[in-house]
């Protein structure tokens, strides 16, 4: 048995005439709901009590990132950032973050699949999970943080949120959200074969995060 690909001669794109699938589905939803006997009232919970996080965010972030096979160093100056980056060898692709271009020079990235290392900043991070927050509207890092086998990310210590909830509020505020936001928690992984953990699948095989306690690169 295989599915047949029905050539419906643009019926699916008609807006006038016979009822569209959109109307069919909405009507089906409404009529089935209307036919339903009443339900028991839902259990109510006024709000979920948030867990308070007492630990200092940088230490907690580092601990949680390392627990998922990420590497984390904390630095206090631009010199240290450069030092950390130059330890890693290979053909480097850099995002368009102004601070990075100042430190490492701006080179246009040709075929992203040819590079060994991608460097970007992260707009924020989450301490309770060791997660980086990358907002594609603020920096061109969607592929640089994904394709090369090594990803180096620099994040300001002051941008590390304690909780997931805070990070969600950060990426969606005042009714605005970027076209593509990505959360990254460690290097890529899978356990699809015998549930045995393998690090490094399609995304980067290594993730280095440099937490910058010094002045922000974007200044």
């Amino acid at each position, binding site marked *: 048995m295989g599915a047949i690909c029905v050539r419906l001669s643009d019926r699916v794109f008609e807006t006038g005439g016979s009822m569209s699938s959109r109307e*069919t589905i909405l009507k089906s939803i409404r009529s089935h709901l209307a036919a339903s006997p009443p339900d028991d009232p839902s259990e109510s919970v006024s709000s979920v009590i948030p867990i308070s996080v007492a630990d200092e965010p940088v230490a907690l972030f580092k601990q949680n990132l390392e627990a998922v096979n990420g590497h984390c160093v904390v630095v206090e100056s631009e010199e240290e950032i450069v030092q950390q980056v130059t330890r890693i060898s290979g053909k480097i692709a850099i995002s368009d973050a102004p601070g990075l271009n100042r430190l490492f020079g701006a080179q246009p990235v040709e075929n992203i699949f040819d590079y060994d290392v991608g460097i970007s900043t992260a707009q924020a991070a989450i301490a309770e*999970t060791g997660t980086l927050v990358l907002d594609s509207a603020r920096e061109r890092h*969607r592929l640089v943080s994904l394709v090369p086998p090594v990803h180096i990310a620099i994040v300001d210590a002051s941008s590390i949120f304690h909780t997931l909830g805070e990070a969600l509020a950060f990426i969606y505020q005042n009714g605005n959200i970027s076209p593509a936001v990505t959360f990254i928690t460690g290097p890529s992984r899978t356990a699809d074969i015998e549930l045995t953990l393998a690090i*490094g699948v399609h*995304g980067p095989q290594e993730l280095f995060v440099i937490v910058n306690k010094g002045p922000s690169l974007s200044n």
Partner: protein
Amino acid sequence: MNHLTSETFDKNAKAALADVQLRGALRNATSLFGKRRLEAARSLNNWEDLRTAARAIKDDVLLHLDSYLETFEANAKQRGAVVHWAADAAEANAIICKLARDHDARTIVKSKSMTTEETHLNDALEAEGMQVVETDLGEYIIQLAHETPSHIIAPAIHKTKGQVAQLFTETLGMPPTDDIAQLTSTARATLRDRFASADVGISGVNFGIAETGTIVIVENEGNIRLTTSVPRMHIAVMGIEKVLPRFADLDIFLKLLPRSGTGQRLTTYQSFITGTKRNASDEGPDELHIVIMDNGRSRMLAHPVTRQSLACIRCGACLNACPVYQQIGGHAYGSVYPGPIGAVITPQLIGIEKAAQLPYASSLCGACREVCPVKIDIPRLLLHLRADVAASPKGNAAERLIFKLWARVMLSPSLYKMGTMAARVMQRVMPLSRAWTNGRDLRPVERQSFRDWWKHE
């Protein structure tokens, strides 16, 4: 190709029980998943509150599903997405085939999507002469093996590393090894080119946010990010029940889903995609198409007991907890969705006549209900469906007759007295059906009935 169907479930299950290798693989996998889920749930001191809150949100969504879908569509369109509606699987496939054809697609990369398994999308695209590559490692393995997934989260859970190694050697010419890291890097290397050259990327959707028109997709491997960032067109397939009201609701669901599925606090990547890029020179696809599919889901809204089927967030926790699934695995169910959730949605999606045995694939132990992050009462649903089966042509006429007689006897004290007297005699002369006694111990009928004893006390 896997030819097992739900109609032969009993036979499928017996065959699976005889497969020693499968049972070993399942025992290891499900107990590990279960252990990790428990640890992850315990690491949060408000886990039960989260479950309650999540279920309340889902109840609200389902009661107002039409308006939340309309809001989702409006917001997604406003940000540049094209939104399509597919009443059934054939239509979803037709929409996607047309998009791929009009876009001159040759190579299509796909990330794991149970919804597209449901529609058999790959078959439809291949019939059009397009090459479709599954990029999730587990899905890639079963695609090479011409099989279907046996678990919602870990599709190739039934395969040993030796079997995977042999498969890769035969189909990819990989030098023999069964080192898992080697197998993984073989898959990575082979799929790299496909990502780089693909025209279209197709994904599923974990959550669609009505408030913003955002689609949220979670993963560990990075193949979803590649599928949805590199090709010029992204097609996302979403069941109607995947919509959530507010962006902030993700705080609850992103805590429940990874912990319930794999025991992780968060999967490696979450992609929050809202419409298309702002400038042509930005990274990312030029076009985003969201296909909203019904395919039998809206019917489930017609009763509170069945409506909760649509609360499912496809975490797979119920599979890992189920003593039946743990023994027989996913293929025996003969359906796209296996395990406890599969046993309740399959009859509703494909019709009770084609899946009449599935509601009976359970001892009603309730383990699934305990682990479900959105508190779906699966045993109650199973009983509801069993009543449907019993009343349908698939029901056993002899069974219906026996229960009618039983009801008559129980409602009449004199018939009851005669019945127990007869049973005392018959139990010595006529053994009960083996189908009943094979799995049950029955005490003999007491020599003195309670009523007699009471009279004489």
